């Protein structure tokens, strides 16, 4: 039995069957039992994803308990991390995510910490722009031209006195950038369809390690 489950054929056949059901359900409507079946299978995917969060807890616990046991550098920070993790998990699952205690942690600890670290993206963007927007070649020239146009166009102070930059930026966004944006999305969507088809047919199995071949 375990050899069957390990084999590449089992994986590719199971993916093929499930994907075929999903794709058929996109084209066939009005079949009540088929709709219910796909609703159920869809919920299996949601439940699997939800359960994976438990695997995340396990991964972090195992790795950091190992570090704590071996007293690797900064092991006391790992004790703090693991306790914050389990305290948040137990509080949220016992008193529910709508409880005032859990919300207090979210509003006063999680959100401030998350938004401040996340907002470093703006500061890093500026650091990168100051270096990247240098006209070293024609590519960089076009990059900077577009960058400065939309930067100046977005300044509220400038818009009070003149709309020239704002209108130029809006034209750029509605015409050339829209053409490029549409091309990028069409190209990406086509790529996703191609990856989907070769994974559906079992040609691409990069999501699984086929130990059976590894011997």
């Amino acid at each position, binding site marked *: 039995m375990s050899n069957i489950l390990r084999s590449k054929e089992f994986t590719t056949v199971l993916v093929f069957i499930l994907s075929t059901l999903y794709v058929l359900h996109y084209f066939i409507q009005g079949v009540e039992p088929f709709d219910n079946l796909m609703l159920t299978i869809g919920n299996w995917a949601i439940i699997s994803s939800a359960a994976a969060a438990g695997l995340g807890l396990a991964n972090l616990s195992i790795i950091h308990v190992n570090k704590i046991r071996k007293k690797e550098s900064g092991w006391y920070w790992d004790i703090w991390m693991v306790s914050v993790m389990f305290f948040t998990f137990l509080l949220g699952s016992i008193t529910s995510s709508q409880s005032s205690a859990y919300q207090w942690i979210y509003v006063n600890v999680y959100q401030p*910490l998350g938004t401040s670290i996340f907002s470093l993206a703006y500061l890093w963007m500026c650091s990168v722009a100051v270096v990247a927007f240098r006209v070293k070649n024609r590519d960089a020239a076009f990059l900077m031209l577009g960058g400065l146009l939309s930067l100046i166009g977005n300044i509220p102070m400038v818009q009070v006195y003149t709309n020239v930059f704002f209108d130029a930026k809006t034209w750029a966004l509605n015409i050339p950038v829209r053409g490029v944006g549409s091309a990028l999305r069409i190209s990406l969507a086509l790529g996703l369809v191609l990856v989907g088809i070769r994974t559906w047919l079992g040609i691409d199995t990069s999501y699984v390690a086929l130990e059976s071949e590894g011997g």
Partner: protein
Amino acid sequence: MITIVNYSTMVFLIILSTIFGYLYWLNKTKKIMPRFRILPGILALEELVGRAVEMGRPLLYLTGYGSLRSDQGPEQLGSFAIFGETARICAKSGAEIIAGILNQEHIPIITSLAEEAYRRENAMDSLNYNNLIYLGASQYSSNAYLMVTVEQREVVSFIATGWYGADMVVKGGVARSAGCLSLGATANPDQYPYLVAAFDYWLIGEDLLSAGAQISKDPGQITNVWAGDYIRFLLISIIIIGSILAWVGFNIQWIFNL
């Protein structure tokens, strides 16, 4: 009452599958294989791992946090293909790889791919499971981990592939300011500007999705990407012809709404 819907999509998929089937048959019987345009990002993998070996410092690899059951799922498959190849090169050359897993759904996949890479190079004993670490499915927890780890473990090569959001520029900027050689690959169009500006090597959109084909050199995958090029030419002709017809008054939008 059974009803069939979305005919336009059905016709599109039939055309694509037919071209793909024909090219696959052409390859199988007449051994015709297209010449793949070389992606610099893929060639850089050897350089990135070589630098880690030379300097005796680790390579940090972040695998992206697209959810498998959303439309970001297929993007992650391209990321897993590149990760598998990178892990194999590290196993062969003895470089230390730290894999930051940014979505809990990927933990079984990344762990299995690392095991397979090290088993294939007979280096199972040098695989450090503590280096396959889950970093929380959020941009800020992975950013914070990166900023601390790059300095603490003196990382010299940095790779970030898969789905990313605004944190793409942080990852590139932090790696560059720490002196790392970096490769970034994402299919999220909003982040292309930061890929180009903040990383040394980069793979944009479909480059990431077709990376698996270039790495594996598997005929099935290459003919699949080959078929994509023909579909692209078909779409370009539809856009050109459709636009001209629309300008002279014939609206063909209905063909998409069947």
